């Protein structure tokens, strides 16, 4: 069973729920829930949690459910943060770096090509390094940033999960980084929206690989 978090201001939780239900069972998890027992994976979805006041993800990080999510991740449970979910996980310190306002100061909303940069951990089971995925982005604050020495470390330890394909970086992210994992590899965040790319009818079903990867995780203790 996959849990899809829902904060006030989330707006992609229904798509994430529906995407997860294509490959397994899923339910919504209200932001005040703290009992995550019975869940095998967690999706922190996109949107504008708590209005994105102060900074994107800054307030959601203090939601009661987030303490339980951190404990779940610490036990090795797989957590996938998408867009605002990525911002929340960075603010919570569960992923390295920060997401800053787009270089072009515009909201970007378009289909984009990603390359899989070759990461380890549980999410790698369904996705091959070098693979190209066509997945939409839609965000205002997606410019990934981390200090140079931290970026070197992320790259040398295989924690850069996704890069924007050459020439397609939509937001000025440093080193074209679109997604990263934590040290253990069980927490993954990315700005593009795999849950919006699950049906060829809407342009691509490349996102299903990632959704499948979280759905096929063994239950966390």
């Amino acid at each position: 069973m996959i849990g899809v978090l829902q904060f006030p201001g989330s707006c992609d939780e229904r798509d994430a729920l529906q995407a997860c239900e294509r490959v397994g069972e899923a339910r919504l998890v209200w932001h005040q829930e703290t009992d995550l027992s019975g869940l095998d994976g967690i999706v922190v979805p996109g949107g504008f949690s708590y209005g994105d006041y102060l900074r994107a993800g800054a307030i959601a990080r203090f939601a009661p459910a987030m303490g339980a999510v951190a404990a779940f991740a610490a036990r090795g449970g797989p957590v996938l943060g998408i867009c605002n979910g990525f911002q929340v996980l960075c603010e919570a310190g569960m992923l390295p770096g920060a997401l800053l306002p787009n270089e072009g100061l515009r909201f970007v909303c378009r289909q984009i090509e990603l390359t899989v940069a070759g990461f380890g951990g549980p999410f790698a089971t369904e996705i091959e390094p070098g693979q190209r995925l066509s997945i939409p982005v839609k965000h205002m604050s997606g410019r990934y940033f981390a200090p140079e020495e931290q970026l070197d470390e992320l790259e040398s330890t295989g924690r850069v999960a996704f890069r924007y394909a050459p020439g397609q970086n939509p937001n000025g992210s440093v080193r074209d980084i679109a997604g990263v994992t934590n040290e253990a590899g069980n927490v993954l965040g990315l700005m593009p929206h795999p849950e919006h790319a699950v049906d060829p009818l809407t342009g691509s079903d490349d996102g299903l690989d990632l959704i499948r990867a979280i759905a096929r995780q063994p239950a966390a203790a």
Partner: protein
Amino acid sequence: MRAKVLIRPKQGILDPQGKAVERALPALGFEGISEVRVGRLVELETDDPAKLDSLCEQLLANPLVEDFEIVLDEQTSGNGRSLQ
């Protein structure tokens, strides 16, 4: 006690908002202005100013990308607002 917290993008971090403001200025006839950086100002009342550092590090600023500065103001005369 009233306090103001000034939050700015760290030096070296690209601030596209500041750049956009800077680029708009010549069109309005303002020449010779450069290095524009746009930050945030948070005003608050506190019983315990000693906790403000921690509050800033945990919530008001993201220390990875932002610097913060706390300005304490014990004078709350007049209309209660102090602008310096």
